[in-house]
């Protein structure tokens, strides 16, 4: 009986071993970011915060823990704004170094993308997730406002690039020619747009101008709107 149990144990161990061998084969290739760059959590290439439209690069190493050479890999990604190319200077038979260049489009937020390295084994691939947070931006339209005589209320249209809505955190004005902003409030328009209602009390005679600096929660860069007119 004990021989039978022992044999079954042997079979189970063999099974486990074979599974682990399979895993080892599958994970025989390792993809890590370049040593100087951030890699958290392991296996994920984290680009951190990227400004929309800005180009970021990362070096990625692919190596085997066994002595076999890394073959020719075919790389596939669904995002057209991810460019990957091999760095021949840094690559050798054991190690492949790839340069990943990202230029995420304006209008995307938290992004998880995947790169597939084909050719690891037949019908197999290595999936490398890429994570990044693209910083939101806010455009305010119009950029330049013509102050009309008698008019005190002006509407500015807020157009965030990532989220549907942003909140006004603070505003500040710079005026050389006596334009006073008495209130700046965020309101919702009937068509769902987010607007800023700006109340201006223009004073002085002749050319007047002011810059309204608007800061929004979670947005790094402030939006600037230039007010200009002729005082009466």
């Amino acid at each position, binding site marked *: 009986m004990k021989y039978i149990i022992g044999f079954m144990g042997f079979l189970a161990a063999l099974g486990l071993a074979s599974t682990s061998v399979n895993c080892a084969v599958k994970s025989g290739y390792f993809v890590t970011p370049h040593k100087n760059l951030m890699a958290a959590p392991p296996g994920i290439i984290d680009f951190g915060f990227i400004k929309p439209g800005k180009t970021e690069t990362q070096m990625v190493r692919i190596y085997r823990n066994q002595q076999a050479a890394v073959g020719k890999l075919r790389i596939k990604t669904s995002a057209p704004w991810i460019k990957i190319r091999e760095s021949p200077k840094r690559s050798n038979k054991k190690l492949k170094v790839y340069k990943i260049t990202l230029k995420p489009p304006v209008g995307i937020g938290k992004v998880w993308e995947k790169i597939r390295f084909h050719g690891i084994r037949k019908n197999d691939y290595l999936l490398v997730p890429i994570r990044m947070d693209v910083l939101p931006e806010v455009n305010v*339209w*119009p*950029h*330049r*406002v*013509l102050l*009309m005589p008698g*008019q005190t209320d002006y509407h500015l249209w807020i157009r965030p690039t990532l989220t549907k809505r942003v909140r006004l955190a603070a505003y500040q004005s710079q005026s050389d020619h006596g334009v006073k902003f008495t209130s700046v409030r965020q309101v919702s328009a009937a*068509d769902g747009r987010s607007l800023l209602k700006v109340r201006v009390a223009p004073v002085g*005679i*002749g*050319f007047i*101008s002011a810059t309204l600096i608007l800061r929004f929660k979670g947005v790094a860069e402030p939006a600037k709107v*230039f*007010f*200009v*007119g*002729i*005082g009466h």
Partner: protein
Amino acid sequence: MFKAIRNRFSWRSYPVLLSVLLVVSYARAAEPAKLTPSQLVMLARAAKERYWSIIYSFTINTYRVVKVGDRRKRVLQSKCRQFWRWTPWRVYCHSIDTFQSTAALGAMKNDRFLSFDGTATTSMVITAHANQSWSQGWVQCQINHGNLIHVSLINTIWENWLWMEVTNANSKVIWDSKVHQYVLEQVLDADSKTPLRYRTWIDPNRGFAVTRNESSSGGKVFLDYRFGHWHEVKKGLWLPFSFSYGDPGVIENKCRIRRVVEINKAIPPSDFAVKIPNGTPVYNDVTNHLYHKGKQP
């Protein structure tokens, strides 16, 4: 003191005093604010951003000026009907040209048109009276990344004339008291024999719109744009319903807005898509490739 004044000015002089005061206050009110060239340009550019969408149609008649004896005669060269949808972000123009002579058609043949790069769309259909075999239904599309100039009505009125360096020492602002408008005058190559002079009339009572632009070299006008028939289409929003441009005495273009469909109302992005019929030759400038719609390689 009051007694002295009362004695000095009797009640009979009050109407005279009142009228003097009225005239002085009117003159004071009519006196324009003094502006520098850069301030005037700032005001005109800010005025442009009050327009954020417009749908309109207009016609352009192009005339060639010919000399018949001592007299000058205008000969109709081409007619054009245009339909525009415009926002600061996207442009759609549909243009139908009808030529009256083969010569005009030949001149146009090498100059056929442009356009879409995802942000701006222009389509052109040419119907030729002079040469029936040519160009019926032709649409040529050329993709120019970043090079497309949106020559819409709004840009024509507000922006096109303000590209010049206003910090130039030779630029100045003059008040034209005849028409009550500012004139931005800029002189380039002031030291040369034929200095280039650009004069732009900007009307503060019509939202700082450009009402006239004149370009001259050595005193001879070679380009003259004039905008007329102004209407306030919405409160504070002015549009000229006619304008003319050209080289005076050589070519004259007369434009007239037929209909303003919408102004400052949202236009869905799908309205800017150009509809090209199958089989139309399309030239892609990026890939330097000519193909036929529906048979793309």
